[in-house]
């Protein structure tokens, strides 16, 4: 039975939510915009899901725009904001996901300047640098709540307060954080927040952008005017219902999830320390309890990964999106990690289904692989 330790890439769908979702494929199949009865049940189901998603992050249902995923939510936030404002200065964190860096990059041709908030060796924003950049009063700042590779958590409420004080709009990619830790949109001070269903055991292909009413966005998709004109396209009813269901489950289980993940992580990290010559990235920072990203000095990460898969263990190096590239992770490089070490990085991300046994299985396989690969490397050098 393969061991899945790649929950930050995606998480298996919660069977309880599947039950709730399935009827909206075959029986309650109507188009929510239809005036007849077939449209009404799906419409009501979407409204309910909207409340559930809003509750997860303490937002108001009217602030929720359903999208086709986390990538689309961040695209809408960044490009949607930029389209309605004179080109200026966009500031993003140094360790953002491509769904933030790429839209930012695409704004350059419209005259926007993009600056990067540097991070320290543990992946945290640097106070003095942040202050300096914010003093330039950038109209928009985008920093993720928790990093997908290292799990490092930024202090978004503190940052948002500073952004607001300097007259800017704050966007945060909370795709990896919501449902794993307490994320309070209303209290955070952020204006825009991206969410994704499949990272919390929901269906792929659906996400949300939480929008503070004071911010106006140009919609990315024109058409039938769904989501109050903010996101046209027939609603993915089943997906949205699934999203609402897992949001609800996540909120109820938040404390329990945190405890269980911490136990797994502590177990893993003490075993890793025992192995020796292992560097855990962001170890001193506040991190998601489910994520451990570490370097295995002197070993090729890709080879290690594939061998681990052959041993029945699924983990990743860097993020899923970038896993076809052989470059060292930009996130780790931003943290000042040596490129050779970054290439050896492995990310373990736990989920609800993992057990202590899984940790032990992983350590056993890792130990065996490291011994073999280090021996081979030694042989190659000697």
């Amino acid at each position: 039975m393969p061991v899945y330790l790649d929950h930050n890439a995606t998480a298996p769908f919660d069977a309880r939510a599947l039950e709730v979702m399935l009827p909206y494929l075959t029986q309650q199949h109507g188009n929510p915009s239809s005036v007849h009865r077939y449209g009404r049940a799906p419409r009501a189901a979407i409204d309910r899901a909207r409340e559930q998603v809003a509750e997860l992050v303490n937002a108001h249902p009217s602030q929720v725009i359903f999208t086709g995923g986390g990538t689309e939510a961040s695209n809408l936030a960044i490009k949607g904001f930029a389209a309605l404002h004179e080109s200026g200065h966009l500031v993003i964190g140094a360790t953002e996901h491509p769904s933030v860096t790429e839209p930012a990059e695409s704004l350059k041709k419209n005259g926007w300047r993009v600056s990067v908030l540097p991070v320290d060796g543990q992946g945290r924003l640097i106070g003095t640098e942040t202050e300096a950049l914010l003093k330039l009063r950038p109209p928009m700042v985008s920093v993720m709540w928790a990093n997908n590779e290292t799990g490092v958590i930024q202090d978004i409420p503190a940052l948002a307060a500073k952004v607001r004080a300097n007259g800017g709009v704050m966007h945060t990619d909370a795709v990896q954080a919501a449902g794993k830790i307490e994320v309070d949109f209303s209290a955070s001070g952020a204006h825009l927040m991206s969410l994704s269903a499949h990272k919390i055991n929901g269906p792929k292909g659906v996400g949300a952008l939480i929008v503070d009413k004071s911010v106006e966005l140009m919609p990315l998709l024109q058409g039938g005017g769904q989501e109050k004109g903010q996101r046209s396209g027939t609603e993915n009813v089943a997906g949205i219902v699934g999203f609402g269901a897992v949001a609800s489950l996540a909120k109820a289980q938040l404390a329990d999830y945190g405890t269980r993940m911490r136990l797994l992580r502590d177990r893993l990290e003490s075993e890793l320390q025992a192995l020796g010559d292992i560097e855990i990235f962001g170890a001193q920072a506040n991190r998601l309890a489910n994520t451990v990203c570490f370097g295995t000095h002197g070993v090729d990460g890709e080879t290690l990964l594939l061998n681990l898969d052959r041993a029945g263990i699924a983990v990743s190096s860097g993020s899923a999106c970038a896993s076809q590239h052989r470059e060292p992770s930009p996130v780790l490089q931003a943290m000042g990690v040596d490129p050779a070490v970054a290439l050896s990085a492995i990310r373990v991300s736990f989920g609800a289904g993992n057990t202590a046994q899984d940790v032990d299985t992983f350590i056993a396989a890792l130990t065996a692989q490291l011994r073999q690969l280090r021996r081979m490397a030694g042989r190659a050098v000697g």
Partner: protein
Amino acid sequence: MKKPIYLDYSATTPVDPRVADKMCKYLTLDGEFGNPASRSHSFGWHAEEAVEEARANVAALIGADPKEIVWTSGATESDNLAIKGVASFYGKKGKHIVTCKTEHKAVLDTCRQLEREGFEVTYLDPEPNGLLDLGKLKAAIRPDTILVSVMHVNNEIGVIQDLAAIGKITRERGVLFHSDAAQSTGKVPIDVNAMNVDLMSMSAHKTYGPKGVGALYVRRKPRVRLEAQMHGGGHERGMRSGTLATHQCVGMGEAFRLAREEMATENDRIRGLRNRLLNTLKDMPEVYVNGDLEHRVAHNLNMSFNFVEGESLIMALKDIAVSSGSACTSASLEPSYVLRALGRNDELAHSSIRFTIGRFTTQEEIDYAAALVREKVAKLRELSPLWEMHQEGVDLSKVQWAAH
């Protein structure tokens, strides 16, 4: 018979149980739930395999190469990507786009957005039968035209445009040709090469697949370039970033595979049912079929019932689920812009009903619906002073209505 009887297949279709069955295998822990972009383990590889198999099935339905299929979240996104993507990439070559007044809002609104950004759009009028006159199209194309967008099958009246003829013109003039095929997949055979189509939008939920997934065909020979609208991890060769929803892609692939296999026989059966409905209704006085009957998909019947108020008719027909105008615009009380474009006056446009039948429609349902419509139309006409005047021979267009 389950009530209300569902006769609104063009608004959306139920997912075929065979498709739903297959989708379910790609969700939970005991299924293939991996992220298809995960290169480092078999969870990802298996998911990717399923997505690629689905991609091939989508391509096969339209005669394309799988490499030419880009997954999206639906036909609305495909339309946005095609039109804005071409406009952005080829904008320096020219800023003129030609389309038709009867396109879906996902095309029209996108064009309006481009107008706000400095593009010029010509919105052609169709003929009264709903079809585009090719001479008018030729005349509209200018040296600075970069795109022609004409939908294959209209969602409201079901008429089929001659894509091959249009494609011949656009190819000769060196202009890109996009077609919204959301309503045609599984109903009309499609061959993008024979039709000289460069871009084609497709939807899953109109062809017994799930909502929330679609695709865009993008020609590779000769290569059509697009500026991506969704930026991120570089998925779909950089044309559309975002984690692929394995279960959704599988659903669309399976739906399209079934469509390819069953289209011919299904069309025959459905045409029989639609004609049965038509024949029962057409001998009523003052009823009109909207749109050409010959160049039309077998599933669609759109009729206006003169001297009957549209909303009242819909209310009276609550045992059948139909629509007047299209689903996307049914929140507004404006008459259908498609019917207006055909030259129908406001009254006839308002009193129109769109019946669209499908895979699970039975003869019993058709007979019930036909009888119901006859009954309710007659009843409403009895109550209608306009109908009374018409029967007395009054020419209503000459009446001076007093204001209150």
